[in-house]
């Protein structure tokens, strides 16, 4: 990684023991569009704002929520191009895992491998940390799972989490609304209400994206028509 003239790491410790580059990366995440995830009893839902820079952008061509494997999906807050690179690497790692063990990769393993990549970029020559935090939602033999991975490479499993611009309001809202035995449909409603909280302008199926996975173990992104149905239920 990096050419021989940059074999030293650009991420270095400050005298107080902090890695300032990672703090700055977290600022990049914090100024990105809000995204959130909720783990229900029978599935996981992830959602994000999809504010495009101009009305001229062809919004059907933009998809922020991506699939990593048939049963694991991911959403990000922060720099889009950085997330593309990570998603691509993770997809490849999932395939390599399958070819090696002939077992579909468990969610924890994929999260760990993605986090390892992100950590490597904080300790290698000539590269900078990723400016994204990822919310990884999956359903495997251990049930529904939701993980958040930060630019430093640290990851946590969450029952519900939010990231981006509106993180503090969203988290407070989720803390109040979350219940352990929530069903997936309730979780989608809660996710919509949370997004609505800090939304600038009118929320609609054109400026948000929702992805979910339930006991069928197939992650899918909802169509605008389906999002409209859920929004109507929430009104």
């Amino acid at each position, binding site marked *: 990684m990096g050419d*021989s*003239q940059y074999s030293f790491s650009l991420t270095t410790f400050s005298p107080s023991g902090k890695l300032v580059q990672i703090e700055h990366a977290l600022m990049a995440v914090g100024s990105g569009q809000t995204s959130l995830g909720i783990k229900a009893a029978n599935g996981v839902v992830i959602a994000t704002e999809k504010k495009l820079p101009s009305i001229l952008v062809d919004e059907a061509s933009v998809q922020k929520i*991506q*699939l*990593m494997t048939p049963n694991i999906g991911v959403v990000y807050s922060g720099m889009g191009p950085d997330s593309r690179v990570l998603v*691509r690497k993770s*997809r*490849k790692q999932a*395939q*390599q895992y*399958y*070819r090696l063990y002939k077992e579909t990769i468990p969610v924890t393993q994929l999260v760990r491998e993605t986090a390892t990549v992100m950590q490597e970029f904080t300790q290698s020559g000539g590269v900078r940390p990723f400016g994204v935090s990822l919310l990884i939602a999956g359903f495997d033999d251990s049930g529904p799972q939701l993980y958040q991975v930060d630019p430093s490479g640290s990851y946590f499993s969450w029952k519900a989490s939010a990231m981006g611009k509106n993180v503090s309001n969203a988290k407070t809202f989720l803390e109040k609304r979350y219940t352990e035995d929530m069903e997936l449909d309730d979780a989608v409603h809660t996710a919509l209400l949370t997004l609505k909280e800090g939304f600038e302008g009118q929320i609609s199926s054109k400026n948000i994206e929702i992805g979910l996975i339930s006991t069928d173990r197939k992650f899918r992104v909802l169509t605008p028509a389906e999002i409209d149905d859920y929004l109507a239920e929430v009104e």
Partner: protein
Amino acid sequence: MEKARVDLPPKGGFSFDLCRRNEMLTKKGLQLPGFRKTGTTIVGLIFEDGVILGADTRATEGPIVADKNCEKIHYMAPNIYCCGAGTAADTEAVTDMVSSQLQLHRYATRRESRVITALTLLKSHLFSYQGHVSAALVLGGVDITGPHLHTVYPHGSTDTLPFATMGSGSLAAMAVFESKYKEGLTREDGIQLVGEAICSGIFNDLGSGSNVDVCVITKGKTDYLRNHQLPNPRTYISSRGYSFDRGHTEVLSTKITPLKLKAEVVENDAMEE
């Protein structure tokens, strides 16, 4: 600062490094280890709604049947399957690898995989290994451009055909196809013809045998009919058991060794009260 010579990562393909040494060893009389071949009959044909693939299920190791019911029709994509003849390990490894690459490609493009994509990935890999990856494949599938059937040879050349056969039983199967194939076959007729061709290979070729596997691929649906026909049922050992009476087996020689009884008398202390 002088730039040290960079070690490039290996780019794949056949490495000729050991060829000279191998030649020297074979001249000295070393025998290279053999591989398990599938000695196979695999076929494919295009019918009115799509593609039908067929294969036998015998895997041989020289004159021995190594696997009586192996799977020779490999998954490549939900709409693409591939039959493999040649070295079993090679066909498995190469189809798994391309299937993995196709999955990554599907994620990136968000589209169904095309048969031509699988074909090109296979042929590039086989060519770069100069025929040392001994995999002869019949690749078939249905994609957005229609149904396709191709054959791939170990050196990397390919053919596009309406009906194809490969493997040691290919001549027997091709004889059946050449006489009975016509365009626009129905599903039942197509499966029937594929079954006949594979059976022809099973009964007339030593390297093929056991059962018939069929895979029917149409737009939007794939039916994998594992063991569609079982023309060689196994007769099991009688559950009543066997009786081996004297006189059934010829006695060649007899040797009797009597066992000597060894008894030791030990002076014992009188037993305590």
